[in-house]
């Protein structure tokens, strides 16, 4: 077996902003009529409400659009995506492994909302952006996927090449709020 080692593009591990360990990621697209069947085969209910997520053990499905989901696997198991593809055999859908396209940061603590508000124009208060809500949006000039995992915890997924840009701005914001 190969040992999978992925170099993190992030520089530091301090304060409220920490790099998330490598995750399995896949983008799933399927038609509305097939959502129920695909959910059964995945063993994970694909959320149909806008900007909501569902989790089952190490696996999560994040709503990105009415026919598009980001699937996450916290264990980064080898063969996770091929396993999903095998289970979806015969379904008319698209499943793309994007595990290495994106990297993730976790922003935690009392000031998490304020740190993110430095570059994100959404209302991030708990009432407007409750736990479990997720969305694609912008942080400064970079597209991100933002997911609230707890009252004071956010998961931020960003394309690898934008990672240091986003991290630098977040750390600057952290030093100022």
């Amino acid at each position: 077996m190969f040992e999978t080692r992925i170099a993190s593009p992030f520089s530091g591990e301090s304060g409220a902003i920490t790099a998330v360990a490598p995750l399995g990621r896949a983008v799933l697209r399927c038609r509305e009529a097939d959502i129920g069947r695909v959910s059964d085969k995945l063993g994970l209910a694909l959320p149909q409400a806008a900007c909501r997520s569902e989790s089952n053990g190490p696996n999560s499905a994040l709503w990105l659009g009415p026919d598009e989901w980001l699937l996450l696997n916290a264990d980064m198991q080898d063969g996770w995506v091929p396993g999903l593809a095998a289970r979806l055999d015969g379904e008319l859908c698209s499943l793309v492994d994007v595990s290495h396209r994106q990297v993730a940061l976790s922003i935690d603590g009392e000031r998490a909302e304020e740190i993110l508000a430095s570059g994100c124009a959404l209302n991030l208060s708990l009432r407007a952006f409750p736990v479990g809500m997720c969305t694609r949006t912008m942080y400064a000039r970079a597209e991100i996927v933002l997911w609230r995992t707890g009252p004071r915890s956010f998961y931020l997924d960003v394309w690898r090449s934008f990672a240091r840009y986003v991290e630098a701005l977040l750390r600057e914001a952290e030093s100022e709020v």
Partner: protein
Amino acid sequence: MLIIPCPYCGERPELEFSYGGQAHIDRPLAPTDLNDEEWNEYLYVRANPKGRHAERWRHIHGCARFFNAVRDTRTDHILATYKVGEPAPEIPA
């Protein structure tokens, strides 16, 4: 910044969207049957109203879906948004 109501995601900041031109322009079913003038009309000729304009927008940095909006070009107010395939809503003056 404008706040634009996406029909899928709700109210979102303008910077998540991109503009897609005039709405409700159907591609001719048989383009080869068109003469040059009709083809020119389809490709290039657009309304340029001072007032209400039905136009396509894409929530590209959100759900990535196209939708239609009625915008008043004088005030930049977005009066209604609706999904692709739906008729433009009646809006009282």
